[in-house]
Structure formats: C-alpha cells, structure tokens
C-alpha cells in the first residue's frame, strides 16, 4: 500500500486495485447499505403510522397522562402530564439503582472477604451463595422474593415492628421520614462549610506534604472541623432543622414517615442479592491478585491484620476491582428494568404504559433507550474518572 501512495507511481496501479480507492469504495458501500436499510424501515414506518391514523412526534409528552403511579418521589396524579410520568419513572430507576449499588457494594465486599476467610465453613457458605445466585435467573429470584417472601408478610394490622420505628407488612416497608424546617437552610450552610473545610485542608495538606513539611496536625484539624461544624450548626439553627416523623398505624394504613412499596423492596432486595454475588467474585479476584509478597512484607513490618488489609491489600486490589465493578454497577442499573415483574414503576414500566395508552411506541422507546444510554454513559464516565485516580501513575 505504501507503493500506491507514492505520488509518481500511483498511475501504474489500476483503479480497482488501488488500496485508497478500494477503501473509500468499501466505506461508501457500507454507509449506503446502512442508509438504505434506515430509509426502507422509515418508509414502512411512515406507511404503518398513516394506516393507523397516527403521527410521529413527542407532543404527547405535554398531554394529561390519566393514570396513577403508586411509587413516586415527586407529586404525581392522574392529571399530570406524560412528561412528568416519564420523570417519575426516571427518578424511580435512579433511586433504586443508587440505593442498590450502595447496598450491593457493601454486601459484595462482605461476600468477597468471606470467600477468602480462613474459616472453612464461612468460605464454603459464601461460595455456595455465589454459585446459587449466579446460576439462576434474576427474574426468577425477583418473582420468588416478591410472591413468596414479601406478599406472604402479615397484613397492615399485624405489621412486623422493627424496633418500633420501622414497620413491615404486605403493602411495604414504613420507615421514619424527615422534613426540613425553617432552620434547615442555616444547618445546610454549616454542612457546606464543613465539606469546604475538608477539601481545602486536603489540598493544603497535600501541597505541604509534597514540600516535605509535617501535615498531621493540619489533617486532624480538618477532621475536627468537618465533624464539629454540622453539630454546631444543628444547635445554631435554633429549633431542630429536620422534623422527624415516625410512621403511625391509623385505622387502615400507616401515616407519616416514608412508605417504600413492596415492589420497590422486592426489586431492591433482589438486585442487591444478585449483584452482590457478582461483586463478591470481583472483590475476591482483586484481593487474590495482590501478590503474596506484599502481604508478607506488610506483616514483617509489624502492621496489624487490620492495617495490612486497609493500607496494603485494599488499595492495590482496588485498581483491579474498579473496572469490573463498573460493569456490575451498569448491570444493576440495566437489570432494574425488570421492575415490571414486581410492579414497581420504573422507567421501562412507565414507558410501556405510555406506549400502550398513546399508541406511540417508537417515540417512547427512543426516550427510554436514550435515557438508559445516558445513565450508562454517565456511570461509565464517573467510574473511569475514579479509576484514573486509583491507578498507579507510572512513568
């Protein structure tokens, strides 16, 4: 190919054997084929829509939705628009994903460490958990958790009290809620100040550290400020900045506090149990990948077992763990679309309702898939950013 691109000799190569021409031609063919396919699909779609007497567009988003949603983080009623129904779904997906990711990470680390436990029974139980969960479908697990566990809970009147602040029954989980009062803004200000103090002291400390000056006292001061400021703010705000509400059993149902529906609880439990098994394997792999010499050296230096784990093993294991962990987080988010099986109103379920009611499946699916894509890309970006921070900076 190098011969062909040397100006003077180019003419000697016939056109149909000139690599440059062939490349352009090949690409043109591919692009043309894709465009033709799209045009074919689009024209069929236009005909189909015309036959049904429907147009194509996103204008339906402004129209009244006319259906109720049980789980909503924002005020929503049947008179709200399709647009706000979509927003409810998006918030629900994000909510269950974020809470699920946090809980699955905690449980997953526990499972991973348990699998490496020197206690034979503990490591076998952890291994059994991982194999059982990884080799059965998530949808089946969700259905079992929903129908066999949560729907078998006692009715409202006989709720299971969890330390008399939270209640569990057939309809869901009732936990205490907090609503901000007048003093909330003042307290929030103190909290922001605390975070700012931490950030600033860390920056100053790292600069001093680079210069070889002592930083220990500065770090302690930062920590004290970070913990102390919100406490001072709490009292400075006068009355308590947050009003706590306990769920109270009324005649037919609980009032006050926050209600988490059975569907949400089942979905969250299922996602956490399922993803934790995978995260456990990721964590185990990461810890095992840290070379044995590191462990022995750390012990030889006289570090305690806890220090060995937190100062030597985990920081190095983290580098290996973060990329596969990211894909587990993405999987959890995508798997939350199985909410439809337990009746939780996530993005996909609300999308399906919208599509059924408006007869506009195409714009709805574009919105739903686009949103999932954006969530996935954003998570990837965030985790890549974190990944770059934990990686070793090599020369």
């Amino acid at each position, binding site marked *: 190919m190098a011969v062909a691109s040397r100006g003077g000799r180019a003419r000697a190569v016939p056109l149909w054997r000139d690599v440059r021409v062939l*490349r352009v031609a*090949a*690409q*043109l063919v*591919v*692009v043309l084929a*894709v465009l033709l396919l799209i045009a074919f*699909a*689009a024209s*069929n*779609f236009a*005909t*189909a*829509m015309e*036959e049904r007497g429907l147009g194509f567009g996103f204008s339906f988003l402004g129209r009244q939705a006319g259906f109720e949603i049980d789980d909503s983080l924002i005020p929503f009623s049947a008179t709200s628009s399709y647009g706000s129904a979509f927003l409810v779904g998006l918030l629900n997906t994000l909510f269950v994903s974020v809470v699920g990711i946090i809980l699955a990470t905690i449980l997953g680390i526990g499972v991973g460490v348990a699998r490496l436990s*020197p*206690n*034979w*029974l*503990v490591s076998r*139980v952890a291994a059994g958990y991982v*194999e*059982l969960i*990884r*080799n*059965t*479908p*998530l*949808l*089946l697990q969700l*259905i*079992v958790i929903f*129908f*066999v566990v949560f729907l078998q809970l006692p009715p409202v009147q006989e709720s299971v009290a969890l330390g008399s602040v939270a209640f569990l029954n057939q309809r869901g989980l009732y936990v205490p809620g907090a609503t901000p009062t007048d003093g909330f803004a003042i307290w929030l200000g103190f909290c922001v100040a605390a975070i700012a103090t931490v950030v600033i002291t860390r920056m100053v400390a790292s600069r001093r550290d680079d210069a070889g000056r002592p930083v220990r006292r500065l770090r302690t001061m930062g920590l004290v400020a970070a913990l102390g400021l919100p406490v001072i703010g709490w009292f400075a705000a006068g009355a308590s900045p947050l009003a706590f509400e306990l769920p109270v059993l009324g005649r037919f149902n609980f009032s006050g506090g926050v209600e988490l529906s059975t569907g949400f609880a089942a979905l969250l439990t299922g996602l956490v149990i399922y993803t934790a098994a995978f995260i456990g394997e990721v964590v185990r792999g990461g810890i095992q990948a840290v070379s044995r010499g590191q462990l022995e050296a750390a012990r030889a230096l006289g570090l305690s077992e806890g220090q060995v784990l937190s100062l030597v093993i985990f920081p190095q294991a983290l580098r290996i763990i973060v990329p596969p962990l990211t894909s587990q987080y993405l999987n959890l988010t*995508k*798997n939350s*679309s*199985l909410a*439809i*099986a337990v009746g939780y109103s996530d993005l*996909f379920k609300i999308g*399906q309702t919208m*599509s059924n009611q408006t007869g506009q*499946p*195409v714009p709805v*699916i574009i919105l*739903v*898939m686009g949103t*999932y*894509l954006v969530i*996935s*890309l954003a998570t990837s970006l965030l985790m890549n950013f974190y990944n770059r921070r934990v990686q070793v900076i090599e020369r």
Partner: protein
Amino acid sequence: MTAETLTPPATTIGPIGWLRANLFSGPVSAFVTVLVGAALVWLAIQVGGWATADARWSVVTDNLRVFLIGRYPGDLAWRIWLSLAIPSVLAGLSAGAFGRTTRTLAVTLSAVQALIAILIAFSPIGILGVVAYAANAAAVWVSYAVGRRARIPRRVLAGAWLVSLPITFVLIAGFRGTPLTPVGTNEWGGLLLTVLLAAVGIVLSFPLGVLLALGRRSRLPAVRILSTGYIELIRGVPLVTILFMADLILPLFLPGGWQLDRVARAMGGISLFSAAYVAENVRGGLQSIPSGQVEAAQALGLSGVQTNISIVLPQALRAVIPANVGLFISLLKDTTLVTIIGLLELLNVGRAVLGQPESLGARMEVYLFIAAVFFVLCYAMSQASYRLERQLGVGTR
C-alpha cells in the same frame, strides 16, 4: 535436675488438625463456626421437613409435559424426543474425540436426561417418554465409546454440530406437505423454548459478534464508527427494551405484508443483543495478540483477510472461549426475560401452571423446580468454562 513435663504439641495433622486449622483456629473463628453451623443445621431441618412432608411435588410431575415442551401437541412429542438424540449422539462423539471439558458437558447432558426420565416415570406423560429419555441418556455413553475408538476428525464434528441445529428445527417445526405436520411456534414452550432461544442466540450472536469486533478495529473509519456505535448503543440499554423493540416496533418497520414470527423476532432480538457483548469479548482477544503476529503475516505477503482468518482469529478466539461461555450462561438465564413479552418459556409456563386453581399454594415447589433446572444447566456450563480456562492456561500468564 528436675524433669520438666511439657504438654505434647497440638496436632496439626489428621482430621483433628484439620478441624483446628480450618474451623476452630481461634475463639472468634470457633464462635463463627458454631453460629453458622447451627444456622445451617436449622435451615436444613426446616427445608428438609418441608420438602419431604408438606411440599406438593405432584404439581410439578402432573404438569411435567407443559414444563418440558409447553403446549406442543402430545401425539407429536416423539419428534422432540427424537430431536434430542442428535445432540446426545454428537455430545458423546465429541466427548470421545476431544475429551476433558466436552466430557463434562456430555456427562451433564446424559445425567439431565436420565433425571428427566425418572421424573417422567412419575408423571402422566407415559412410558414412551421414559424410554426415549433413558435411550438418549444411554446414547451419550454409547457414542462416547464409539467416539473414543473411531477418532472422528474435529472438522467433521464441528460441521455436524452446525448442521444439527437446522435439522432439529425442521424436526420440531415440521414442514408442510411432509409426514412432519407443521407445529406453530405459538405452541412451543417450556424448557424446549428456553433451550431453543438460547441455542439460536448463541449460534447467531457468535459470528455477528466476531464481525462487529473486527469492524471496531477496522482501519476504515465508517466501518469502525458504525460498529462502535452499535456495540455501545446495545450495551447501554437493558435487554427488555430490545425485546420490546423486537416485539412491538419491528413489525412497524417491516412492509405491511411481511409477517415475522413472534418467537423468531425474540430470537433475533436476543442474538442482536448478545452479539454486542460477544464483540467486546472478542475485541479483548484480538487486543491480546502481539502485533508481531500481524507484522509477520504481512511480511509473508498475506492479505488483510488472510491475516485475520489464518493468523489473528484462531489465536484470539481460543483466548476468549471461557469468557464467551460465561456470556452464554447469562444468555441462557436472560431467555427468561421473554416472559415480559408474553412468550411461554420455562418461567412463564411455571406462572401459567400456578394460575390453575389446582396448583394453588404450590408456588415454592414450582419455582424451586425451575430454579433447579436453570442451576443444573448453568452450573455445568460454568464448571466446563473453569476447566477450559485452566486447560487453555488463559488465567495464568
């Protein structure tokens, strides 16, 4: 000089030594062992008591036909029993020829069919089913013995596997105007549909994934951008949205007269979805090939296509087999999602069975049975993949 009496050192060998080292190495460890052990024993008693005394396993055996083949006509069920002979014989022959990992899979296939034969003996399906499954289970072993003697070339076996799927399809679906009466896909169901969805997904997604992976590494920008875009788009969305598209939206994009079968659409959706993940696995394999290989091939005067087919792909694909087996396990589990678009695969058949008044209160029995089926299939595949990984030495670079 007084003789000092020393206590003998603690044993570190034998069962007591093992117990001491692994279960009672310290007060905390001993406490945890007792706690976990007690919980396990309690659980075993509870579950064991329920499974032997209270559970109504008759719900499973009475509906076994539906679980196995869905609403497939009972008098034509022999076609499915017969079609099972193809993978049974091929698995046996391959196990004889390849040994090791394939043997694990063949043994599993035989064991599963023997188990089903036993289950059928308790169900109203009839003696023909028992005989058919037992014969298939035995066929695995017979052809294993044959395969060890005959030393069939690998190429022939691979070809036979490729041809077997369409033949199985024709047997199950039938053909108009032949003694094989056509059976519509709306009557396929249960384990039959689950396995078919997974098998078609695996077979179709693999070549497509390889092409996409090559496309992503192509030097042609248009090809690269299209492949990358496709892979990232598919990997960014959940499978249910793809199935929703295949079920509701694809028909809108086809000309009015074209009728594409529902099951076929689901199979297409699963394959297109899985291909993006295969592509990323294969890309990993392609990247692991040292560039010296490609340069050497070019120095020998091989064309780009020749380099890929004879130098790069054989090495890359071998490296990614374990990862792909992992992927195919999740594909098998993901076939349950077609429940959401209303196809009657194993899980949905279970829900249909639970909808009958006579199976009231037998949820746990039905779900446990389905879970056990998936567990056996997936666990066998994952064990095979671990062995393969060790055999190929992928993990130990």
